[in-house]
């Protein structure tokens, strides 16, 4: 392979690549991210290869396996270029038809297109699907276009040009000035301006400095960093190298979760390729800049996403935080000046250098520039990864991109910022999403988790869920975090079991404040958020649990009973047969009755009762009506005049 020795050679190489590629040649692409892998994209890939061969299309059609497209709920996703025809939930069995119809005849296979659940309209092109139409994909754009295992694909789209520009046309100070002017804020959680962090690391004296990619994404349900690393590792690498050049570092680490095997694989391939092309190692692109990268796999501790814990882990010590100051920019990895940024932050850097700070900062709000990738999950029609400009409203994300709440249910809250984020109620749906606005309503941007909750969600249960997660993920070193979370979880558990006492809410607030103010690191500093924030907006739910022993959302098992309304029950036997506890008495033409002593409150009866009867009721906060007497249980049917 040719070593590229200058910016001119890089450009020439790109032009040579493009001249060999025909943009009008049909190309069938398959999303090969982890989510689609889980829905059998491997089988689809094998089928595509086989079918291209079988139908004699090898010379006329390219096949490319790309990174994650984001619409993971509808995977595996197949897009056929140049038309950009998009097929969803494709199986291996669909491939012969796609090959013969679309690839050969240029006909669209109707049944594989996206159908809008509200209007019933079909969308042929990927960009016509509402989920995509309302996004602005700057960082994610090439995820769907290139094969992450091919550096040539990345070079063909202008890859490493930002690096060349930085190395040959800019001084390190100018790079920092550009990133500062762009006001790029850290995408990992805190939103600290990257340029200021870089500058601090540059100004700290020292020969040896480090740059680190934080790919220890640990929030439940969040996977934007994984998808970027899997789908476009070179862009993260390019950003890292530009940062290293600006700071004066010659060694970099990528700290990546062990649980992300595909990301590790694609990154490792990318590193080897970059080295081969002279884009990594000594005298990069023929310049005087040397840089090497090592991959470090984390063992799966949430706290290691916190930068000082990450450093401890990299040094081979237990993943526990250390105090700041001194900040890593002054005293980081092995005591050397170190700059740590999240995957998405690094991936934004080439955009800024290529397009300039002013283009970048033309998108977004006053304080938050560019786009942000969110992992939109929960009770929303379109789940997946969405990239939107800063400043878009929560309502637009949830209703325009996300397609609203399924099943005609009511929206209750949206939880942003991961386990230590906050739940935002309906009245704030029109706030503009950026670092500062989210903070104002008591939530955080975090790394971009966004969980939509509907009316069937109990906010006490939500707080309990997140505290339970955090009690296991706190490292346990400092007492306010370890003990504070433990005590808060105990109180929440009691409240959810109907054992809450007057004064519990105030006690939770007191514990929350101590944990927030006195903890050693950001995990403890933000751990009380789910509690304090749900109390702030849903205090009435806490009070209902404590005072009335009632769970308004009918979620907390101990506070909910199931009851069969005798006037509605048609003795169909459905619940009786399915009840795992054999708690339902009755029979043919015998109204069914739940034995409350035996009932384990699993909710099966509620789910299986036919919707035309709706006889099973959930009761909370009031006594269950006594069972109707045995002699009144017989149903006398008048149908078809067969009455005796």
């Amino acid at each position, binding site marked *: 392979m040719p070593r590229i020795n200058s910016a001119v050679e890089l450009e020439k190489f790109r032009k040579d690549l493009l001249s060999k590629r025909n943009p009008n040649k049909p190309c069938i692409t398959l999303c090969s991210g982890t989510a689609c892998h889980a829905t059998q994209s491997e089988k689809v890939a094998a089928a595509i290869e086989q079918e291209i061969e079988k139908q004699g299309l090898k010379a006329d059609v390219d096949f490319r396996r790309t990174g994650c497209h984001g619409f993971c709920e509808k995977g595996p996703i197949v897009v056929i270029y140049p038309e950009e025809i998009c097929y969803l939930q494709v199986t291996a069995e669909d491939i012969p038809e796609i090959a013969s119809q679309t690839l050969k005849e240029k006909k669209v296979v109707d049944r594989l297109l996206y159908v809008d659940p509200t209007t019933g309209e079909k969308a042929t092109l990927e960009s016509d699907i509402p989920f995509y139409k309302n996004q602005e994909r700057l960082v994610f754009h090439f995820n769907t276009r290139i094969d992450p295992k091919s550096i040539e694909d990345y070079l063909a789209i202008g890859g490493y040009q930002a690096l060349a520009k930085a190395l040959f046309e800019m001084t390190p100070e100018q790079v920092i000035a550009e990133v500062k002017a762009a006001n790029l804020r850290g995408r990992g959680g805190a939103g600290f301006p990257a340029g200021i962090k870089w500058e601090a690391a540059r100004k700290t004296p020292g020969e040896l400095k480090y740059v680190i990619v934080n790919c220890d994404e640990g929030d439940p349900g969040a996977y934007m960093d994984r998808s970027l690393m899997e789908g476009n590792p070179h862009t993260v690498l390019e950003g890292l190298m530009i940062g290293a050049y600006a700071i004066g570092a010659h060694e970099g680490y990528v700290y990546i979760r062990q649980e992300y095997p595909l990301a590790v694989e694609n990154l490792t391939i990318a590193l080897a390729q970059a080295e081969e092309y002279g884009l990594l190692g000594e005298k990069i692109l023929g310049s005087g800049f040397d840089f090497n990268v090592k991959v470090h796999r984390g063992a799966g501790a949430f706290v290691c996403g916190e930068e000082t814990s990450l450093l401890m882990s990299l040094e081979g010590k237990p993943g526990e935080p250390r105090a700041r100051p001194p900040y890593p920019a002054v005293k980081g990895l092995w005591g050397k000046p170190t700059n740590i940024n999240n995957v998405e932050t690094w991936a934004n850097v080439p955009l800024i250098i290529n397009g300039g700070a002013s283009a970048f900062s033309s998108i977004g709000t006053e304080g938050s520039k560019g786009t942000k990738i969110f992992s939109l999950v929960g009770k929303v029609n379109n789940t997946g990864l969405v990239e939107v400009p800063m400043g878009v409203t929560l309502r637009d994300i949830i209703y325009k991109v996300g397609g609203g709440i399924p099943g005609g249910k009511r929206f209750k809250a949206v939880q942003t910022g991961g386990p230590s984020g906050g739940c935002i109620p309906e009245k704030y749906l029109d706030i503009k999403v950026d670092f500062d606005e989210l903070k104002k309503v008591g939530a955080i941007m975090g790394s971009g988790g966004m969980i939509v909750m509907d009316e069937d969600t109990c906010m006490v249960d939500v707080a309990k869920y997140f505290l339970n997660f955090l009690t296991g993920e706190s*490292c346990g070193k*400092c007492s306010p975090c370890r*003990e504070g979370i433990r005590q808060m979880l105990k109180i929440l558990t009691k409240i959810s079991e109907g054992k809450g006492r007057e004064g519990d809410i105030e006690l939770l607030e007191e514990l929350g404040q101590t944990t927030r103010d006195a903890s050693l690191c950001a995990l403890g500093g933000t751990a009380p958020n789910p509690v304090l924030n749900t109390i702030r907006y849903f205090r009435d739910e806490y009070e209902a649990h404590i005072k009335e022993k009632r769970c308004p959302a009918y979620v907390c098992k101990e506070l909910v009973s199931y009851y069969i309304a005798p006037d509605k029950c048609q003795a169909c036997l459905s619940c009786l047969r399915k009840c795992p506890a054999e708690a339902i008495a009755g029979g043919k033409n015998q109204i069914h009755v739940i034995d409350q002593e035996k009932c384990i409150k699993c909710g099966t009866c509620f789910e299986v009762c036919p919707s035309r009867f709706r006889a099973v009721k959930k009761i909370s906060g009031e006594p269950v009506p006594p069972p109707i007497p045995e002699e009144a249980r017989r149903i006398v049917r008048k149908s078809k005049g067969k009455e005796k």
Partner: protein
Amino acid sequence: MSELLLQIDGRKVEAKEGMTILKAAQSAGIFIPTLCHHEKLEPYGACRICVVEVDARGRTTLAAACLYPVEPDMVVRTRSEKVDKTRKVLLEQLLAHAPDAPALQELAQQYGADKDRFEKESSFCVLCGLCVRYCAQVKKKNAVGFVDRGASREISFIPEIASRECWNCKECFPLCPTSYLQAAYHLTEALAFPRHSFKSASGK
């Protein structure tokens, strides 16, 4: 190391750059309570009993005095409503584990901490880490360590090392603010030490 001036509890205090607030306060004869701090060990910042209120960099925060470096013109309050309340809650949480530890009781009295405020979970260990750190940093033996994390964190002797090293040392015993360390040691000794190093209670 250059000298700098800061203010602690309204008094001007001279300190050297790189010094912690705790050191600076101690040198001026100002007392800040600690649990997990020890002169011979690297600052740890786990018990947070030494939290003080700090005005620096344009904001007011709670900082662990044992770790936070002094800065010129920094204003420190070692007692305030917020500091006292934080210490009280922290003590109450630790008292749920070791209600009879003298060090905790003494502080509890001072800060009005109620040892029965939280349900007892008598692990007896408050995870100050003095034993673990002393063994690692001073003795360089690592015979006792932390296991697990979060709410499940505990200390544990490593039998293979402990049976070799602890018999003639036991320097960690007096460091422990509760009696848990000794109990943990004796348990390890009884369960896992080789027979020849084990002496019966009667001394025979």
